[in-house]
């Protein structure tokens, strides 16, 4: 989604208050943005804590800072800066985390982001965006850009199945209707789930993509709520179970008295074999590939 991100921010670069800060990343992708922004494109160096603190300072003066780095270098390395400097002050800093889930593949676990939105969802007022398809990025940038408070964008690689057309962006979207289980997937893994069930008939799952978290800031739409009663709910996410949407939805159903026929999750399992590989390899190991999802989620 880097190319789409760059295009969206170049389109936004006419705003004189936009400042882009990168933690020395973006080679081969962000040069057009650098050229468009001039002195408002800041390579802050390999110093993410400082970059996030500087961004908070910029935002407090009315500027519109966007920070960019590999996801864990943002939410994990600079968590206290996000909490203290940005969220305690409700400052509108947009944090771009590239490589959600296993997206960095064989680069290894230091570069993976398996707990990012769970951790960040604990912070006050932080809105989280997880675009599912490449075509979502422009709308997500626009939505994050008008946020009055902090925002985190988890970027990955869109997985639109062949022959499918991505619906227009929305925080919650129905990708396919069905009388089977209600399946909810967060971000790009929704494309994998879609490919798993795309050829199913009316008895297949009712599949939804979620792109905005936490649940407290983005309540499910009425159609989703009405679909739940008496059915099995399955949640798919390239994120550990702890702090994920599955846990949040389970609590939400219990509190709301939603009578489910069952509940299952498919989440990131970490590194069960102790070996490393591509994003597809790690998804298979976690049972997040299309074949595994069919097996695990369908009756």
């Amino acid at each position, binding site marked *: 989604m880097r190319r789409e991100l760059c295009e969206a921010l170049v389109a936004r670069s006419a705003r004189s208050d936009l*400042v882009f800060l990168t933690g020395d990343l973006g080679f081969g992708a962000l040069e057009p943005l650098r050229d468009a922004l001039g*002195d*408002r494109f*800041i390579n*802050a*160096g390999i*110093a993410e*804590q*400082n*970059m*996030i*603190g*500087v*961004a*908070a*300072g*910029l*935002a*407090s*003066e*009315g*500027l519109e800072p966007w920070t960019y780095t590999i996801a864990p270098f943002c939410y994990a390395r600079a968590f*206290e*800066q996000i909490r*203290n*400097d940005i969220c*305690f*002050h*409700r400052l509108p800093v947009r944090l771009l985390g590239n490589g959600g889930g296993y997206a960095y593949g064989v680069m290894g676990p230091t570069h993976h982001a398996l707990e990012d939105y769970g951790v960040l969802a604990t912070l006050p007022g932080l809105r989280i965006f997880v675009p599912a398809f490449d075509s979502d990025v422009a709308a997500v940038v626009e939505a994050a850009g008008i946020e009055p408070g902090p925002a985190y964008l988890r970027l990955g690689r869109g997985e639109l199945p062949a022959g499918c057309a991505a619906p227009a962006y929305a925080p919650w979207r129905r990708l396919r209707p069905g009388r089977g289980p209600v399946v909810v997937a967060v971000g790009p893994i929704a494309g994998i789930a879609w490919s798993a069930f795309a050829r199913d008939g009316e008895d297949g799952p009712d599949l939804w993509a979620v792109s905005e978290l936490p649940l407290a800031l983005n309540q499910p739409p009425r159609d989703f709520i009405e679909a739940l009663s008496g059915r099995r709910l399955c949640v798919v996410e390239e994120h550990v179970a702890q702090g994920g949407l599955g846990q949040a939805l389970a609590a939400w159903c219990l509190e709301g008295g939603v009578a489910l026929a069952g509940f299952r999750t498919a989440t990131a399992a970490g590194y069960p074999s102790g070996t490393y590989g591509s994003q597809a390899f790690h998804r298979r190991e976690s049972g997040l590939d299309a074949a595994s999802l069919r097996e695990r989620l369908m009756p």
Partner: protein
Amino acid sequence: MARRGHTLRAESRPHGANPAPQEAPAPLAPGLLTLARWRLLAMHREAHVGHVGGNLSAFDAMMLVHHEMLGAADRFVLSKGHAAGALYVTLWSRGLISEAELASFHADATRLPGHPPAGGLPGIRFGTGSLGHGLPLAGGLALAARLQRREGRVFCLTSDGEWQEGSTFEALIFCAHRRLSNLTILIDHNRLQGFGTTAEVASLDPIGRVLAGFDVEIREADGHDLPDMRRALVPGTDRPVVVVLHTVKGRGVPAIEGRLDSHYLPLTEDQVRAAMLGIPPTGNAPGTGYA
């Protein structure tokens, strides 16, 4: 916004706004400085809280900057948030925090906790307390002024132990590389941190010489000598200015001056009285601790 018994003055400004500039900044009167120091001692005594040593070492510089140098276009960031009391009293001395509000220091339901809170208080732009956060924030303010083509200086007051935080050095590299000449970094060099001297724990001494390896202008001053600090705090030219303030922890309270325990232990009634009356201490003389 006002709560029972605790009100900000009617002229309270939005979150973080700086005091309005004085028509012509008047020199900080020594009498006001003494009065404010007594108020700081009384406030800590009444609240029965510690951290007073690092408040007193930084207090003279904080008062000088706020009374003589901060206008509406200028910014102040207290990176050593444990000197919150000194900041509250400084703002009180400028009429930005009321006496009643000051009396709530450290009490339940106060807006003046042990470290500056985020939002809501005039003259306090950022909540701080975890060390190593102030200089990146100040760097952002200085960069913002440059990008917005604005005048104005940014002052950031750090402790000396705080330079053990990596993020402070990240920020120094950033600010020096970008030659943020509108930034002045003050280091309260009282040589004492939480559990020992800075020389014992993780020495950067002499810190001025260490930081001189960066592209910043290093100045040194007696942090309790107003004329010396005025000389050292004149604006820089083409790079950030770092002013190493040689200070004494617990300055103004002879019984605790230069002592490690002044970092944590609350003041006694006798210590406050002796400080106000200028009575020399008995028993442990100043300088017998970690001076």
